């Protein structure tokens, strides 16, 4: 965060005020064993499926619902900091570990993966819009998927 602030100050920007929580996080205990847990996934990497609309870069707060069984060859990426996505474009597992999670389900270490996983374009500058738009949409999506717990993957 210090390096980023120094970089943008030199470029003439006012330093960004990063979210710093002033209270302990809410806490929901995990009650099911992993082998009986249905897992939901959100990755902020800007992945979309071929046939879906790509993300735009100015505070895009939308989600994409992607079949968990999708072929890696049908995944695409659009993200405001897509300079970090060079490897993920070659191997989406770097940011969306569907193959790895399916493997954990097959071995019985994980109960199930939700039928769909979700992505967003995590480079949203407005914390208010994340709170009011992204977070409730993710909660609704995870309710639809009837998951017991959620894996959150930032880029």
């Amino acid at each position, binding site marked *: 965060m210090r390096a980023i602030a120094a970089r943008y100050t030199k470029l003439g920007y006012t330093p960004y005020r990063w979210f710093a929580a002033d209270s302990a996080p809410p806490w929901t205990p995990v009650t099911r064993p992993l082998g009986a*847990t249905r897992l939901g996934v959100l990755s902020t990497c800007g992945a979309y499926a071929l046939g879906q609309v*790509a993300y735009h870069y100015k505070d895009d707060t939308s989600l994409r619902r992607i079949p968990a069984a999708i072929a890696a060859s049908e995944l695409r990426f659009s993200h405001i900091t897509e300079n970090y996505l060079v490897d993920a474009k070659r191997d989406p597992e770097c940011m969306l570990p569907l193959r790895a999670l399916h493997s954990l389900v097959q071995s019985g270490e994980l109960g199930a993966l939700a039928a769909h996983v979700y992505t967003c374009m995590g480079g949203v500058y407005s914390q208010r819009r994340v709170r009011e738009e992204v*977070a409730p949409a993710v909660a609704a999506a995870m309710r639809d998927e009837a998951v017991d717990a959620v894996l*959150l993957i930032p*880029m």
Partner: protein
Amino acid sequence: MCHQTVSLVARHLEAHGLPTLCMASARDIISAGRVPRAVFIDYPLGHTCGKPGDRVDQLAIARAAVQALANVSQPETIIDLAHTWGDEAWRDDASSTRAEDTRQPRDESPQFQFAADLDAARASGALA
């Protein structure tokens, strides 16, 4: 920025009865966000779930993340995974304070990875 988004989403989901596990590769941002459970992977941004093409590394990280979900009992726990990237030159870029803006312009129209993806989105009816 993605780590901040994830922090806010984690706190929201947790408040609404869903346990969460955050994977992170920016420790300071996820730490400031005070999330319920996290694993820290000390890799360059864009590799939160492992090295490209390395199925062993990717599976080990996914397994560690899922197990952390079950094993963490203390709020605000961040588990530091022992995985190392190997070539550490990326740290110079990550910690650079050189005046450089690598972001894309803040376009308000969809930015398709390939031009053909636009045609596919039209063909599927997703885009008018």
